[in-house]
């Protein structure tokens, strides 16, 4: 469980997150929605320690994280597999077999030895999702994961997330308001101007 209590974040003069109090539980998929600049990405960065709060507390055990924040970025002149191998070498939890099985899950195994610079945006998006899930993290934080996906890959990603949700905290940030209609989310958190406007269970 992750608990945020009265969390504020200020960057220079701007308060990007204001009085955020929230509890995130394992086994649930959260949709974090709001307009551009509403603070969704900042909240995701704060959840995975990329940023520290200016005030307030974030209580959580030592979780492992799989993140997909901003545009998918990789070493362009290297292959998909070597990018993933490099990232896997940091925690040394998985080997080539697991990497390949993750690539299979996102339908990229046949492109494993293709240089990332030759990937389309949708393929890069799937590769970013692959790096996020490959080490079976406790917390999955996905920022606009469905961008640039065709219908088939969108359905496959939704299916993968559904399969994984049992023992994970999954937070998906998106500005598409009709996403809440997908039978994937357990709670919808709506943000506006750095504040949580509402939390609704589905």
């Amino acid at each position, binding site marked *: 469980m992750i608990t945020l209590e009265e969390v504020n974040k200020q960057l220079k003069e701007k308060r990007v997150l204001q009085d955020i109090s929230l509890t995130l539980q394992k086994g649930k998929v959260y949709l974090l929605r709001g307009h551009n600049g509403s603070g969704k990405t900042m909240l995701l960065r704060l959840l995975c*320690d*990329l*940023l520290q709060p200016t005030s307030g507390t974030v209580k959580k055990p030592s979780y492992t994280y799989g993140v997909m924040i901003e545009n998918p*970025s990789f*070493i362009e*002149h290297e292959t998909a597999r070597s*990018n993933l191998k*490099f990232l896997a070498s940091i*925690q040394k939890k998985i080997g080539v077999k697991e990497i390949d099985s993750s690539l299979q899950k996102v339908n990229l195994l046949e492109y494993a030895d293709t240089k990332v610079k030759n990937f389309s945006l949708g393929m890069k998006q799937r590769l970013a999702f692959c790096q996020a899930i490959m080490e079976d993290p406790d917390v999955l934080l996905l920022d606009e994961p469905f961008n640039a996906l065709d219908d088939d890959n969108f359905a496959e990603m939704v299916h993968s997330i559904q399969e994984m949700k049992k023992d994970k905290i999954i937070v998906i940030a998106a500005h598409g308001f009709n996403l809440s209609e997908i039978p994937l989310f357990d709670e919808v958190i709506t943000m506006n101007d750095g504040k949580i406007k509402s939390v609704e269970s589905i």
Partner: protein
Amino acid sequence: MTRKNIVLLSGIFLLYLSVNNSEGVHISSLERLATGYNDVTNKMQFYNYLLNLGTMVIYISIIESAIASRFRLRNYIATRGGHKTLINCLLRTVIQHICVILFIKQVVYLFFYFISESFSSFYGFDMLSTFLTLSLLALFLILLKLQGIKEKLSLFSIVSITAIAQFLSYHYPIFSTIVIASAGWQEWQALMLVCKSVGILIMMSIVIFLSKPGKIMEVVEQ
């Protein structure tokens, strides 16, 4: 290191060979290429200076692109092992690429040795100084990255600083700290190596300090 950079580097060495043909190919050619100075006439030679700058631009761009490609993965690396792991990854990739540059220099030295059948005392200093100077510049590049400076701007800054420092070093030896070698390197070599090492330690401390969560990394995360 891309194939394009290797071709460019080879091109510079070949060009250097061709413009030095009138003096005969000699191991000291490499010394002049590194210093941009002709110690026979005791003057800066403009084409030496330009070729020296050309090699420096390639060295720096090799290191810069290596840092940039790893830095692009910063969110994925930092969430796996923290900001210190990110810095470790950057340092490791910098050292790997500097070693490749040193290996290329080694090959060129051997090539010159087989042609001229003589060896220069500049070799040892050049190898050590290249390693220390490029490490110092790489740490400066990492520092700029941590402050959110864009790739092209940081590359331009470093190249400009190197070009100016190389020029000034002919008159003020202290500027040799941030270039590989300059005129009168024999006289100042020990002091220069010490200055470079101290510079690296200072840069390293700043980079480690700024890589802590809540410090300047936040600028990049914005």
